[in-house]
């Protein structure tokens, strides 16, 4: 299974560390040099730092200059977590008490105390409300001072018609953006979440007004996000999220069956399969064989492996990427777009983006 990452820089230490933090004991200062850079590029440095620090004697064995970077990432993540708490408190005051508001991803992991939240540094707060509540939620937030930072009419329309979230909003001066979602997959994509199932599975987070998705739906959402929403450089972190959620929530056969069944009903069987497949291959996530039974055709799998491993795993920028890596990056982006929207719409979207970018460059060219 490990073959897919063989020969890549990440296989030297980063993936072994993510699989088992005890690998840190074998590393020299020189090993850490590249590993810190790769971990930072993949946005998993804070998570690694927390795992190492949880064992005092291991922490003490790490070379001091490295411990400095780990401390910095722990401090930074603690700051981000505080920003999340403050944003959620501010949103709580603004949103009507009778509205059911769901926190997604990082904010949910944090409020629910999932270990993967430790050291993770969210860039935004993702909220989900029922489609029927969406307009009200938006206008309440606008009245309370949150404003959309997307000025362009086309972009506004893109979000509202073809996406699964509103354009990001921010309260002036706040560190984090708020993304208001009404479902967990882009409305134009193949995966179409069963909203009834999604909302029936909600759980109220103890001591909070916020709700979270059913743990299985959280994993499915993370898999959809990984393939349809994630910026390329954050994909390894998304896999680390899935790995953390699986290890925390899926401890018996019944829950695994539930996960597979719910993925089917959300139209996300294939995406979940790939997510678990890469988690198992790269992070040694304990995934039972029967959860990987509904495999895609071999050729699709081979193509996906070829693109995904090249486009997902971070690499040091000291040398320019080879032609194969660049090709894989381009194919990865194309696939990402095709999953999100049908080809005709995609063509229209890309044509618009290319045109406006050219035009903007010419008219805004300074000096």
């Amino acid at each position, binding site marked *: 299974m490990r073959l897919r990452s063989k020969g890549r820089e990440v296989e030297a230490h980063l993936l072994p560390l993510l699989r088992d933090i005890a690998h840190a004991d074998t590393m020299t200062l020189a090993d*850490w040099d590249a590993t810190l850079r790769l971990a*930072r590029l993949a946005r998993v440095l804070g998570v690694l730092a927390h795992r190492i620090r949880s064992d005092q004697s291991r922490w003490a064995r790490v*070379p001091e200059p490295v411990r400095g970077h780990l401390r*910095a990432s722990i401090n930074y993540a603690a700051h981000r977590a505080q920003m999340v708490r403050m944003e959620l408190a501010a949103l709580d005051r603004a949103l009507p008490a009778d509205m059911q508001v769901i926190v997604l991803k990082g904010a949910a992991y944090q409020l629910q105390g999932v270990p993967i939240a430790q050291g993770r540094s969210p860039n935004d707060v993702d909220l989900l409300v029922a489609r029927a509540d969406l307009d009200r939620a938006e206008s309440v937030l606008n009245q309370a001072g949150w404003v959309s930072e997307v000025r362009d009419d086309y972009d506004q329309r893109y979000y509202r018609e073809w996406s699964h979230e509103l354009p990001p909003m921010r309260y002036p001066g706040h560190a984090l953006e708020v993304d208001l979602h009404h479902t967990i997959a882009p409305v134009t994509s193949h995966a179409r979440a069963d909203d009834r199932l999604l909302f029936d599975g909600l759980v109220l987070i103890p001591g909070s007004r916020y709700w979270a998705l059913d743990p299985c739906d959280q994993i499915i959402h993370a898999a959809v996000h990984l393939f349809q929403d994630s910026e390329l450089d954050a994909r390894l972190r998304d896999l680390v999220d899935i790995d953390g959620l699986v290890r925390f929530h899926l401890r018996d056969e019944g829950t695994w069956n539930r996960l597979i069944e719910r993925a089917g009903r959300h139209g996300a069987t294939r995406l979940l399969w790939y997510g678990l497949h890469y988690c198992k291959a790269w992070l040694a996530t304990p995934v039972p064989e029967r959860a990987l039974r509904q495999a895609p055709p071999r050729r699709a799998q081979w193509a996906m492996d070829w693109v995904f491993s090249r486009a997902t795993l971070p690499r040091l*920028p000291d040398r320019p990427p080879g032609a194969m890596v660049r090709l894989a990056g381009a194919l990865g982006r194309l696939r990402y777009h095709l999953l999100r929207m049908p080809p005709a719409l995609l063509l229209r979207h890309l044509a618009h983006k290319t045109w406006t970018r050219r035009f903007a460059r010419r008219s805004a060219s300074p000096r």
Partner: protein
Amino acid sequence: MIPSSGGLIASRSDAELNSALGGDGCFVDYGACVVRVRSVAHPFTDLLRRVYGAFPLQASAEFADFHVELVPGKGVRRWLRPTARFRIDGVEPFEPFPATSTLPLFEWGVNWCFGQRFNQHVLLHAGTLAIGERAVVMPAVPGSGKSTLSAAMMLRGFRLLSDEFGVLKPETGELLAMLKPVALKNQSIGVIRAFSGDAVLGPVFPETRKGDVAHLAPDLASVSAIHQPARPALVIFPRYVEGSDLEVTPQPPEQAFARLAFNSFNYALLGPVSFHAVADVAESCPGYALRYSRLDEAIDCIVSLLEDTRGPR
């Protein structure tokens, strides 16, 4: 800490410097951090020899905190209006500079990396100098003459740790050096040139974002002591006021605390970590606001205030 390949940068040839910069890079040890710099941009070896002259040339090392690159601008512009770009791990945090300003770009870039990422330490916006192990911390807002006073103090025998960063290690309360060439701005350039014949200055870069800038080379004594720890002994809030007489006003600890916290790059980010570290400094060190116009007078005053802190406390 890092094996040196021997010899100071001042005594290395263009060929040696260029082969290091164009190959695996030069490893510059600033004290608090090591930066590996590679460059294929407009050559600036002359400048390195002048403003980094007292630093050892290290062409290899096991570890660097930051891996940065200076590369030429892209496209047609590259020929019409040559520029230099600063990259860290493939990211370009700011707009290109004119190719002739490669040194200011590098200096600015290193400050940016350090200020953004070194959140294991409390980063005060302060000039930091020491006599022996006893350090003076001088926090100030830009334009207070902090860099000029720091430069002058080094030229009168203080060990310079940094003119910009007070690097406070929260676990031990120690100050670390972040020893870089002092970026002097506008009139300060002439002031320092007139102040001491020992001042080694790089060329003036006119009309950068911060006005005219010239870099003062750190002296050999400061570079040699780069890994010696220092402890905060005195806090001075300097303010240059043209034509004014010297005025020293004691600052009660609570006021010193607020001013230290305000003049910090990452006080808010570090939360309780920085609260405790800064409170310790404010509590243990006498603090003074210092208004001055004559450098030597200000330095004499600081020397005697630092002497006073030796008494039984």
